[in-house]
């Protein structure tokens, strides 16, 4: 584990290679605990790859990295993953399970109490769809369900990949409120986004280009 003065995330020369192709090519990045970081950049710039690296979902090919005290090269990435809440831009659920069954599976896997599930569904406006299979939900409703998943998890590190995709204005406000509350609660939030967030708290913007951090970040 790192010392108390270490940033929550520290990457130095981080390289991620997949199929012989460099997805990240020497990323240097520090992120403080309980902060909001917004990753921007064109398609293919490396935003999703960086999020996946921070969540322990891909291996570090070269360089050094430490997230939440876990060394990305030598540490237990499975332990890191348990501390991460992930919202991808694809569906995050089992299509044939209902909204509530998906949340129940996640909660049981993490040994979390099931009492908060209904509250999470109510918070994201999906109470009336609790028994609907995930595949029957609209794209926006699936995003709301993903948000409910994050609320149930109460993760230390929130990694949100294009969270506003397919959301209407009301849902965007909801997402901003939930992110704000997570930050107040001490979570560290990293978001990839093409557009500005409505979150009131100060954020650090990191611009990615060609798999590394741009000079104007």
């Amino acid at each position, binding site marked *: 584990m790192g010392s108390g003065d270490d940033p929550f995330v520290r990457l130095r020369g981080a390289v991620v290679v997949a199929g012989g192709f460099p997805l990240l090519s020497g990323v240097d990045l520090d992120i403080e605990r309980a902060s909001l970081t917004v990753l921007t950049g064109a398609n293919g710039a490396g935003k999703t790859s960086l999020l*996946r690296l921070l*969540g322990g*979902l891909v*291996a570090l090919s070269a360089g050094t990295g430490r997230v939440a005290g876990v060394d990305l090269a030598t540490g237990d*990435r*499975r*332990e890191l*993953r*348990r501390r*991460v*809440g*992930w919202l*991808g*831009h*694809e*569906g*995050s*659920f*089992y*299509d*044939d*399970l209902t909204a509530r*069954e998906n949340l129940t*599976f*996640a909660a*049981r*896997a*993490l040994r979390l109490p099931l009492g908060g599930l209904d509250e999470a569904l109510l918070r994201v406006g999906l109470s009336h769809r609790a028994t609907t*299979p995930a595949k029957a939900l609209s794209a926006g409703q699936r995003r709301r369900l*993903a948000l409910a*998943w994050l609320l149930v998890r109460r*993760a230390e590190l929130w990694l949100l990949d294009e969270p506003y995709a397919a959301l209407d204005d009301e849902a965007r406000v909801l997402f901003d409120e939930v992110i704000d509350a997570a930050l107040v609660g001490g979570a560290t939030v990293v978001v990839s986004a093409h557009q500005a967030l409505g979150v009131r708290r100060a954020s650090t913007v990191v611009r990615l280009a060609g798999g590394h951090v741009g000079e104007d970040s």
Partner: protein
Amino acid sequence: MIRVAWLVAGKDLRIEARSRVLLWQVVPFGVIALVLAGLALGPTRAGASGAGPGLFYLVLVLVALLMITRSHAIERSAGTRSSVATLGLDPAGVFLGKALALLVELASAAIVLGAGSILLLHTPLAGTLRAAPSIALALAGLAAAGTLYGALAAGEGAATLLPILALPAMAPLLVAGERAYSAALSGAGLWQWWLILATALVAYLGLGVLLYGVLEDF
């Protein structure tokens, strides 16, 4: 590990109960394959040829390949995979859970195929019942091997890659299962086939518990 295994098995079986892919797609495919086998042999030769056990296992393996592909397909969408990965589930528990669910599904299919074999291929009922323990062992082995190789073959080319990888590994189960079934029909001893099937089952369970985490991250 056991807690995760129950959780994953329950989830997989719930998904199957709701999607009914086994009921409406896989089992009918198996029955059609048995009908075609019966037609190929002809009504007079089907019962006398002794081909029943071999055809039963051949169709069972084809059915198993479809079910293994399905079992892993439900985990493979990129978003689901990432979300579930962040649950940090014990990979050994995931392996055992998926193998258990696959065993339940295979057993359901085997009951239908066994009845079909008796009706369509005129395989004797008493001998089939005597072969039931060896069939159960073979099914458990197929479930364990299938779950392991399903993870190895998972990806875009899973449907075509899986048979190439898994069939050689399933060959001992197929051969021993067929020999045990034939021995049960003829009243011969079965214990040596049970031993082979049990050894293969233990080997695949051990490999799965040890390697599934590596394959998941691959």
